[in-house]
């Protein structure tokens, strides 16, 4: 018996793995465990002290004065009268999933915890604890699939053939756009709670993150296309419009993957990032101390006090929508031509109250 025959992909796997083992070794040397634990204990103690201070009457007064100081953009509109660019914005609030249309009208689709557009904006896939549903923009449910802990759906494909990827606990599922043929990708490594991302165009290629922080690209009719080295706590994945690059936002940095290899890694405190449609340029939210800024390339587009949270590009790539929970505002920034800012306040109230709503995409005129 020829036990010494090399196994398939043995050499390439060895080279990839050596890179991973070496970087793990180097980070281990750079951050001895004992110091890490001591640092964590100090951080916990400091956090408890801060919480105690905030909860005291003087602390509450300081918090109130900070809130007063963050008034957001001046001359903000009191309501969302219209979107500055064609398309529809999908929003998820405590009340459920909403669609805000170009004329400013808002429609509640139903009590869902998460939602995502279909590739051409004709439908929405939404999820709540035990089910995943496809709806039209009027809120009519086309189909529903009951699955425990169904979350983070993502819809991809062409006019004729689409697929929806979603997660149940740590397992990746793929179902056809008409709700049939649901499969559990049981042989794949367990998935992290990061929305899977479909590569634009066909054939079907899906990127997802495993629980060890590696990004995988799978072709549904074939096999593994590539796999990245582990990244620290990836939170967001997005393919560029031409499907050549993947943007990954991790706990504290941003990585740009091409064929699974990191072409660029930024170490600024990145809160969010998104490719500008049709380009390889991307906008990002950076946090510095008590302020946040929106950056495109080397250009700072907007800066404010407190926390900017999410970004969404208009479908034509001319406007950028930034959410600003600290000021309870949305900021629309015109990027093409002369810069222009349109701010809208009282966002939370307009989407049913409760906590500040999250953006789920700006799609399709």
């Amino acid at each position, binding site marked *: 018996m020829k036990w010494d*025959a090399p196994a398939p992909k043995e050499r390439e*796997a060895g080279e990839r793995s*050596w890179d991973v083992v070496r970087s793990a070794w180097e980070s281990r040397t750079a951050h001895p465990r004992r110091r890490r634990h001591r640092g964590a204990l100090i951080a916990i103690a400091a956090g408890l002290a801060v919480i105690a201070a905030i909860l005291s009457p003087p602390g509450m007064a300081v918090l109130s004065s900070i809130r007063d100081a963050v008034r957001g953009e001046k001359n903000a509109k009191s309501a969302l009268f219209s979107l500055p660019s064609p398309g529809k914005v999908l929003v998820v609030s405590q009340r459920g999933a909403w669609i805000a249309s170009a004329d400013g009208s808002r429609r509640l689709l139903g009590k869902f915890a998460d939602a995502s557009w279909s590739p051409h904006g004709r439908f929405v896939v939404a999820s709540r604890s035990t089910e995943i549903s496809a709806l039209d923009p009027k809120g009519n449910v086309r189909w529903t699939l009951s699955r425990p802990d169904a979350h983070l759906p993502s819809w991809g494909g062409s006019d004729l053939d689409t697929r929806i990827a979603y997660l149940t606990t740590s397992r990746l599922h793929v179902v056809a756009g008409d709700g049939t043929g649901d*499969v559990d*990708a049981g042989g794949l490594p367990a998935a992290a709670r990061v929305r899977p991302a479909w590569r634009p165009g066909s054939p079907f290629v899906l990127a997802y993150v495993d629980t060890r922080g590696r990004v995988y690209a799978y072709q549904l009719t074939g*096999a593994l296309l590539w796999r990245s080295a582990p990244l620290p706590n990836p939170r967001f994945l997005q393919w560029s419009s031409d499907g050549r690059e993947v943007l990954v936002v991790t706990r504290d940095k941003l990585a740009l993957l091409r064929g699974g290899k990191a072409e660029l890694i930024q170490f600024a405190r990145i809160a969010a990032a998104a490719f500008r449609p049709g380009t390889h340029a991307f906008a990002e939210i950076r946090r510095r101390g008590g302020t946040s800024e929106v950056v495109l390339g080397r250009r700072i587009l907007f800066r404010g006090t407190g926390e900017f949270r999410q970004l969404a590009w208009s479908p034509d790539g001319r406007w950028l929508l930034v959410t600003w929970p600290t000021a309870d505002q949305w900021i629309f920034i015109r990027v093409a031509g002369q810069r222009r800012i349109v701010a809208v306040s009282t966002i939370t109230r307009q989407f049913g109250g409760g906590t500040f709503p999250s953006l789920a995409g700006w799609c399709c005129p």
Partner: protein
Amino acid sequence: MAGSTREERAWVRGAQNGSIAHLEALFRHHWPRAYRAAYLVVHDSAAAEDIAQESFLAAVRNLDRFDRRRPFGPWLHKIVVNRAIDWSRARSLRREVGDAPLASLAATSTPDNPHARSLAAALASLSAEHRAVIVLRHLLEYTPGEIADLLDLPRGTVNSRLRRGLDALAAQLDEDVR
């Protein structure tokens, strides 16, 4: 196995003292067998890479506590083979509906080496537990007593799994595996 015991001890000592070159020597020496062992148990190159890589990472994390008087190989192989068995069990439990697209999702290319192909195909017909003892015996060349220690099994169980596994393999392979 290439690489003397003395050489391996020197690599472990060097790595414990922070030498990346010694760690690399240790990795390159042990990678082929670790990966092959995982592959022959799980039959999936991506999973084998995961398992072998994570086993090395676990070994590296615990290298400071490793007793240099003991050989490194068995320590690593114990992690690899037990993880591969766990992975195979989990995979068989996690299948749900619609296996055909699932198979294509997890599919990997066929080995181009005919020996590897026939061996891999024959091994695939066995359970993960049987595959593991055969791989430990014939690829990694452990004695049945050592395998019993590595897998925390009675020696009699190891012998019976070897016997049954080899009988099943012999029925499928043209050449004599005994």
